[in-house]
Every structure is written in structure tokens, then in C-alpha cells.
């Protein structure tokens, strides 16, 4: 009898529901073996119309909106997405600027210029330099800053990030981090120090492909990275931004998993503002050639489908995209944009700056971006949070 109970408990322990409550991985596993191509081939025009007529769409509708068939209905999707964005966010675009603190990195992401095997000039900002950069950036009116480091617990440990945050607090009303995955406790420490936002891209959700693209270093741990956004939620960050690097794998699936991940986080941590980025691979020092094409049209479809799936989710667009495309994406669901971005360490105030992580495509200044947003009939918002 006792044995039976034990067995029962054990079975219960690996119960799906249980896994699903513990990590997004459980949700991901539900789609393992799912015949995506078969599904896409089976989508009919009518399915798209049905999805567009619904007030709330479910996962399968979302996947249908990501299908090749839905491309025919892009305009209709755009109209709906724009309406939802207007209602939920109004005619505003939030602005932020990234600040690279350090490009020391122990990882071997094949697509990244900071990859440990790339022979580039490595540097990290001293606190005095952080201050200089902060001054230069805040002069442009920017109030939200996103700080980035490569993965090196030796060169850019949490204590270093914290010290930088103390400096930056004087200049910015919101500080987000895009650094290597941390423990929940470490996130909590950073929150206490004044960090309110978190960004991390899974890069690729495809678990089989992941190790081939991340061949060495701590980043090769797929699940540890996958669960990082959840740890940040638990540490009570205010905003959590996720994404996958489009082009590493087939974008329709990757976008789907990104959306599911966002939905999972929003459902389990309703008090956190969840947002999603749609970064596409840019050329970098490593000369990595993406295996999958992601056209402008594809990118637009991915964004529109997500907006319809999650009307309230934030959508972030980076300077990776060229000026013309960025201009046209305003109004299609984007809520946040980076401006005046440099991806090099010391890129704002320093003349002999280091190499960038990737080449940015939109090199316009904050002022130019601001004017552009205005010309589109939107308000550029520099401040949307305040340290409290």
C-alpha cells in the first residue's frame, strides 16, 4: 500500500500540470513533436477570418495568424493590430537607449561579435566612464536606459553592475538590464539597487538547434536561460522583455514560442509588464550567415500576430532595423523603440570606442528619432517610469 502511494506521489510529481507550473519548459514540451508544417498546410482562409473576428484568440488562432496563408490578410491584421494598440497604449512611443558596459564574454554564440573566439578589443567602462556616458546620453533627453554586458562573472560581476546602477540612478528614471542569466536572489539584489527592467532573449527556442549555436560557455545551458525571465518576474522586476533572434531558426515557430512564452509569463505573473522584441540577425564581427531568411514582410506578420494574440503586451523595436522600416512600423503595434543607439562599449562619449556587438542599421540621433515619431502623429515619450 505504502509503495503504491509513493509511486502515486512520484507520478504526480512529473505530472504535466506540475511541470507547466514550474517553468515555461513544460509549455514548450507540449509542442514537442507538433507537426508545424502539417498545421500550416491545413490553414484555410476561413480560419484566418475567424481568428480576426474573435475578441480573444487562442494559441491555435495565433499560430494560424503566423502561417503562410495569413500573409494574404496582412492588411486586415494590420488594421486590427493598430486599433488594439491605439486603445491600449494610445498614440505614444516609449524611447530608451542601450548602454554597453562591457564586452568581455566567455560564450561562443556563433552569431555574435563579442564571442570569446573573436579577436576584438575588449573593454569595460570604469565608473567614471559610466558617468561620462550617462551624462552624454541624458543630455539627449533620454530617461530610460538599458545596460548591457557580455557574460563574464569575472569582468562584469553583479557587484560591478550594481555599482554602475548607483551611478546611473542619478541620470535616469528607469534602468533595465540585459546581462547574462542570474539567480533569482541576484535579480532581487539588482531590483533593490534600482533596476526595474529586465531583457533577455532566448535567441532560439528550438532546443535541438540551441547547442549548435551556443557551443561553449555557460550560455550553453538552455534551460537556465529559458527560466531567467521567470526568475526576474519572481524577483519583482517591473518590466520583463523577451525575444528570439529571428533568422537562427524558422521564424514562424520561433515567433510562436516567443508569444507563448510571453503569454505564460503574463499569465503567471500578472503584475509584471511583459514585452517582446523582434530582433533580426545583423552582420557582426563573426561574419555569421543566418540560415533562415526573415523578410520585412515576415517581421511585420510576426508583430501583428503577437499584437492580436496579446493586445496589451509591449513590443520593442531596436536600431537593428533600418530607418525606413522602423518608420513604417510605427503604428503597427510597436510601443517601444531604442534611439541613438551605439552597440560599442564607450560609444557615446569616448572617441576610441571599441568594436560593436553588431552593426546598427538606424544611425539617427535621438533628436531625429523624436522628430520622426512626431511626424508620424505619435508622441515620443522619454519618461514612463520613476524610481519609487
Amino acid at each position, binding site marked *: 500500500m505504502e509503495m503504491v502511494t509513493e509511486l502515486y506521489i512520484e507520478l504526480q510529481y512529473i505530472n504535466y500540470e506540475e511541470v507547466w507550473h514550474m517553468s515555461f519548459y513544460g509549455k514548450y514540451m507540449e509542442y514537442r513533436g507538433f507537426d508545424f508544417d502539417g498545421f500550416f498546410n491545413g490553414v484555410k482562409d476561413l480560419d484566418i477570418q475567424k481568428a480576426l473576428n474573435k475578441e480573444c484568440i487562442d494559441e491555435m488562432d495565433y499560430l494560424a495568424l503566423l502561417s503562410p496563408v495569413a500573409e494574404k490578410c496582412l492588411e486586415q491584421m494590420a488594421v486590427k493590430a493598430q486599433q488594439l494598440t*491605439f486603445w*491600449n497604449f494610445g*498614440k505614444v512611443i516609449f524611447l530608451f537607449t542601450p548602454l554597453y558596459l562591457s564586452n568581455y564574454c566567455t560564450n561562443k554564440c556563433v552569431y555574435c561579435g563579442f564571442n570569446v573566439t573573436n579577436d576584438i578589443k575588449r573593454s569595460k567602462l570604469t565608473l567614471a566612464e559610466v558617468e561620462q556616458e550617462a551624462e552624454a546620453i541624458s543630455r539627449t533627453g533620454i*530617461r530610460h536606459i538599458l545596460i548591457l554586458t557580455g557574460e563574464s562573472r569575472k569582468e562584469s560581476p553583479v557587484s560591478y553592475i550594481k555599482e554602475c546602477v548607483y551611478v546611473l540612478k542619478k541620470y535616469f528614471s528607469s534602468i533595465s538590464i540585459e546581462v547574462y542569466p542570474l539567480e533569482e536572489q541576484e535579480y532581487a539584489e539588482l531590483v533593490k539597487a534600482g533596476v526595474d527592467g529586465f531583457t533577455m532573449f532566448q535567441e532560439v527556442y528550438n532546443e535541438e538547434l540551441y547547442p549548435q549555436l551556443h557551443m561553449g560557455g555557460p550560455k550553453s545551458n538552455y534551460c537556465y536561460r529559458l527560466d531567467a525571465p521567470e526568475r526576474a518576474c519572481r524577483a519583482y522586476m517591473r518590466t520583463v522583455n523577451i525575444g528570439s533572434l529571428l533568422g537562427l531558426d524558422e521564424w514562424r515557430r520561433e515567433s510562436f514560442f516567443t508569444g507563448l512564452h510571453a503569454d505564460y509569463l503574463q499569465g503567471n505573473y500578472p503584475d509584471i509588464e511583459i514585452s517582446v522584441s523582434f530582433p533580426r540577425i545583423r552582420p557582426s564581427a563573426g561574419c555569421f550567415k543566418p540560415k533562415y531568411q526573415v523578410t520585412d514582410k515576415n517581421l511585420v506578420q510576426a508583430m501583428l500576430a503577437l499584437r492580436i494574440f496579446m493586445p496589451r503586451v509591449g513590443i520593442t523595436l531596436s536600431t537593428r532595423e533600418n530607418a525606413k522600416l522602423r518608420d513604417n512600423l510605427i503604428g503597427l503595434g510597436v510601443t517601444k523603440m531604442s534611439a541613438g543607439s551605439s552597440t560599442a562599449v564607450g560609444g557615446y562619449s569616448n572617441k576610441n570606442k571599441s568594436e560593436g556587438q553588431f552593426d546598427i542599421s538606424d544611425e539617427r540621433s535621438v533628436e531625429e528619432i523624436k522628430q520622426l515619431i512626431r511626424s508620424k502623429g505619435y508622441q515620443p515619450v522619454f519618461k514612463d517610469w520613476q524610481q519609487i
Partner: protein
Amino acid sequence: MEDKLVIGGRELRSRLFIGTGKFSSNEIIPSIVKSAEAQVITVALRRIDFESKDENILNYIPDDCIIMPNTSGARNADEAIRIARLARAAGCGNWIKIEVVSDNRYLMPDNIETIRATEVLAKEGFVVLPYMSPDLMAAKRLKDAGAAAVMPLGAPIGTNRGLRTKELVKILINEIDLPIIVDAGLGKPSEAAEAMELGAGAVLVNTAIATAGDPVKMAKAFSLAVKAGRMAYFSGTGTVKEYAEASSPLTGFLLDK
């Protein structure tokens, strides 16, 4: 008899409150306020950029308006309290609209945390206007906690669905001896008129004006609708029959001799 709305000891001439978070530019705000004839303007503290001349939204709000900072972004009572104090310390006056939203999917207010924050802030001398889900018991507690008005939602924020909570709002209007200000969800002037006809003290509108093709004109339309609704309320709207009458009276037999 002049029909004035009194909140926190101030007599207000306008029953249309305006939200500011969604406009296409700050520059449009003065003309919106003017055509809406609005007096109370709510601004999220998180958005106020005190250091910037161009971007500081407060510079666009006419001097004769009452600024009602709101605690948008607060996820619990403590955060709302901190935001309220910051707002007052920054010179935004002592009105505060409490928004505690711990649910980003539907943006539904957290009544329990809202009551907690109201209690603390009212004691500190704030004029507290809490945004809430229309629940009678919660409204009673907000009144006991010292709220100056209660602001039930008409529909979830940003949905433009109209007065979906009508029956619940009616109960608040009947039972709570404070101005009831319908906030959120009103998508059309007719819906604002509807709220006013029921006896709401005022309405707060942002999305519907900000996302209109011509926001200034829409502000005017809302202003007229609010006045019309108020006038109708005072004129005593005729009873609208909600069920059919039997062709021969069901109680007619009582009259039979």
C-alpha cells in the same frame, strides 16, 4: 440652483475629467482641455519629466486646472503610497487618483490594495480618488477610509466598450454618498451621457478622445454629452419598461366586485 460638483472641498464647474496618457502630442492638450471645458486633468506621475522643459507634460496644462496625479504603475498599496507622496513632494498638489493594477492582462484594479492605500493617504491629507472595480462593499470601505469620490470602471481600460458595468455602477450611485466618477471604458459620447443620466457625478475620458480622428472635436462632443446627461438626470428620465405589460392586468381581478 447651481449644480456644482464638490470634491475635496472644491467646487467644480466641469463634470468631464480628462486623462492625458494617450495623446499624440503634449501640444494638443491645451486645446483638448479648452474644448472639453475640463477642469480636472489626470497625469501619471511616472510620465512627468520634471527636468525637461519640452517634455514636461505639466507645462501644457492650463493654470486654472486641477492636476490630479495618478499612481499608474503601482502594483500594490505601498507603491501607490510612495508614488502619491512623490507627487505631492514634487509640487503636484494634494489630489491623488489611486490606481493599483496588479493584473496587466486586463488592467483590472486591485480593490483590496486600493482600500489600503486610500486609508493611509487620506490620513495624510490627500484628496483621494480611487479607481476601482464597481463593488458595493469595496466602495463602502473606500468611503470609510476617507475617499473623496470613487471611480468605478465602465469597462476595462482601453477597451472602449462603454458602460458595461452599468448595473453595478447604479448600485454605487444609489448607495454611496460620494460622487461616483465613471472612469475607463467609455468609448463614445453617448456612453458618457448614459453614465451621467444614471446620476454619475462625473466621467473621466482619455482613450476615446486621444484616439479619435479629431480629438479636439471629440472632446467637445464629450463635453456636450456630459452636460446633456446631467440635465437629463435632473429632469427625471421617464421609466423605461424592461418587461412587457400583460394585455389585461394580472391584478385586475382584485378590482372585480
